[in-house]
């Protein structure tokens, strides 16, 4: 890591088509003050930084990280300051050592792609295919999807690159160190998953959300249950099904219910063959585990 006297790595944070969610997620980072001892944020659209938006088009220096939040658009009318977004991005992309796609929009197109599918893509990817408007920058781009991304995912990647450790990237340019896990890994409902016991309904701490409530944890690459959200929780820990926001096909539709064919979930956990799934669930279903059928804390209060 940099000592306080070492030269700080320079960051420019640009926004494309966005909701600002990644910025607000970034603002939840617990080591913020130390972060600014290591990095020099030359420009950020929401903070009072040394550069303003119109200085960027005149910016000629090389710098370390270009962080993009939001999707890219080829629409020339979409301006940042006085310059079209696409021109500004291209100019800065050339000067940057690395480009980090912060969030699913910058990585794959995300939610806003649906309004203007022709013009809007991620930097390198357009959903699952490598047809992003700026795919020529593939060799310096790292995708950090999530809607929003987790601040620690972003800062971990920055820190790794700063000490010269290139993350191992998967086929969608996601660092495996963070995205080789499934959102399902580490979920406190795992035992219920194993014994095929779904929640009675929303609003219960007991039970898994995969079998009836549409949880995408077993099909989603993310470390939500390893690196907790806001340091305290995760969707599935709280009781909300995973919606698969780190995958290139986000957002899917018909969320919060599990699609099934002949009472078998249409989508099986990532990499599990159907035969294996059927064999294992056939066995577990044959047992009734009393402990897992009961409420965890008090059986008497709520109707069971």
């Amino acid at each position: 890591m940099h000592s306080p006297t070492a030269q700080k790595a320079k960051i420019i944070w640009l926004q494309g088509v966005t909701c600002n969610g990644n910025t607000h997620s970034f603002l939840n980072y617990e080591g913020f003050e130390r972060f600014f001892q290591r990095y020099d944020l030359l420009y950020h659209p929401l903070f009072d930084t040394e550069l303003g938006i119109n200085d960027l088009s005149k910016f000629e220096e090389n710098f370390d990280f270009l962080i993009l939040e939001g999707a890219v658009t080829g629409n020339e009318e979409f301006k940042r300051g006085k310059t079209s977004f696409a021109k500004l991005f291209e100019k800065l992309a050339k000067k940057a050592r690395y480009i980090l796609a912060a969030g699913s929009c910058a990585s794959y197109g995300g939610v806003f792609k649906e309004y203007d599918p022709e013009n809007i893509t991620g930097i390198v990817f357009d959903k699952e295919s490598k047809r992003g408007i700026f795919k020529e920058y593939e060799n310096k781009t790292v995708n950090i999807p999530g809607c929003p991304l987790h601040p620690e995912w972003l800062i971990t990647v920055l820190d790794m690159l700063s000490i010269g450790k290139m993350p191992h990237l998967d086929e969608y340019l996601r660092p495996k160190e963070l995205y080789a896990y499934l959102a399902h890994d580490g979920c406190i409902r795992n035992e219920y998953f194993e014994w095929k016991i779904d929640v009675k309904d929303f609003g219960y701490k007991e039970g898994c959300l995969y079998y009836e409530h549409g949880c995408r944890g077993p099909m989603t690459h993310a470390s939500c249950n390893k690196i907790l959200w806001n340091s305290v929780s995760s969707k599935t820990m709280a009781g909300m099904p995973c919606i698969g926001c780190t995958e290139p096909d986000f957002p899917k539709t018909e969320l919060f219910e599990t699609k099934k064919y002949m009472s078998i979930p249409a989508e099986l956990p990532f990499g599990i063959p159907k035969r294996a799934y059927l064999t294992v669930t056939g066995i577990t279903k044959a047992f009734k585990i009393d402990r897992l059928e009961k409420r965890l804390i008090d059986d008497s209060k709520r109707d069971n």
Partner: protein
Amino acid sequence: MIVKEIIERIEGEAELDFTYKNGIIENVKIKFPHFRGMEHIIEGKSAMDALVITPRVCGICGHAHLIAATRAMEDLYKNSSNDIEITKKASDIREITLNCEIIQNHIKWFYFVMYPLIRSIQKGSQEFISLKNKKFFEAQKAVVQISKIIALFGGQWPHTSYALPGGVMCDPTYVEIVQALSFLDEVYGFFEKNIFSDGVEAFLSCSNSELISKDGDISLFVKNAYEQSYEKIGRSYDRFIVFGENSLFKSGKVLTTIVYPVKTKYVTEKTQTFTYSKNVYYKDKFYETGPLARQMLLKQPLVREFHRKLKDSAITRIVARVAETALLLQKTRDLLKCLDIDAPSYIRPKKNIHKISGSGIGVVEAARGSLIHKIEIKEGLVKKYEIITPTQWNLGNGTKKCPGVAQKAMIGLKDKKLAEFVFRSFDICSVCTTH
């Protein structure tokens, strides 16, 4: 002469086109350049998908969008004569998480947006860079703590979709309650250390003169405004509207401090030619929405005293936002302490949404004011979705004779910096305004 100014750090960008006459701002056009087509994105999808898409309208108030979407669907159930019930527990949890979102917003607005600006208005002060200032980091720490409370119930913030027609998805234990209370304590501490030296409770019962005599950033700001005599700038129509309801207040409009009832059916939208944002009117009139409107409705004593002296000036607006922060801290603590965790979190509606056709309206008070969602579905598929955001109320462009709320507040000023100060006193959000 028209002078174009790009305004940054407002959750995106806006352009203000000032027209001057004899050195005085004679008119100003407010333009928002970015449009993302959120309503179109939802149309055609399954109704429940609105719970995931709508929070993505805005990274800072997405949770309010979730609750508005949920309420719109609950209203839809009612309108199509299907029972829908939610427990007090579920509505209290929603109120807790909504309050926390508003608190984090106000702290960010105060320290990231207004603080640097006010510092640079002060005579002789140098250009102020917040990233080099201790305050920025202290405020960020408070924001981290308050967002944790939302995550304890919703799993994460921003962008949880943990509320749905019929209740909420979480099932907290006392562990979450006591954790939440301790995070809240830290924010109380932040308020006392930075905003007002006598703390949250004292702030809510202090008077104008007491406020000025104390230490803390709000006292400093108000003192400064009086010393440099800009305490009265930024007045507008002095007409306020609040559509959302919660355990603190019912909806209403406030005219010369008298409260009248309101109905959403009198709200109309109008497209503008030169900006993506649409104007919003109540019975053809502009109204101010937001914290000042809510505090006027609640008759909060300190805000009312400022209003008596300074009317709806920028400083009154600032004091109202700080008062709201204090009030919500207090209210959230009460709600957490009284939460009946044994009640059900969710009551499944009897009829599946795929079997329902109809329409509904959901209203919620977001950080910047009243947020309205309208949904129309046919057998569970969204036919039409409409979103009216708080900032549309405040930032509409009217005519010369009848300017919009923020326009009116800026017209007549001489100084560009003061105009920007007035503009920002409305807490601008570019992504919400155009969505």
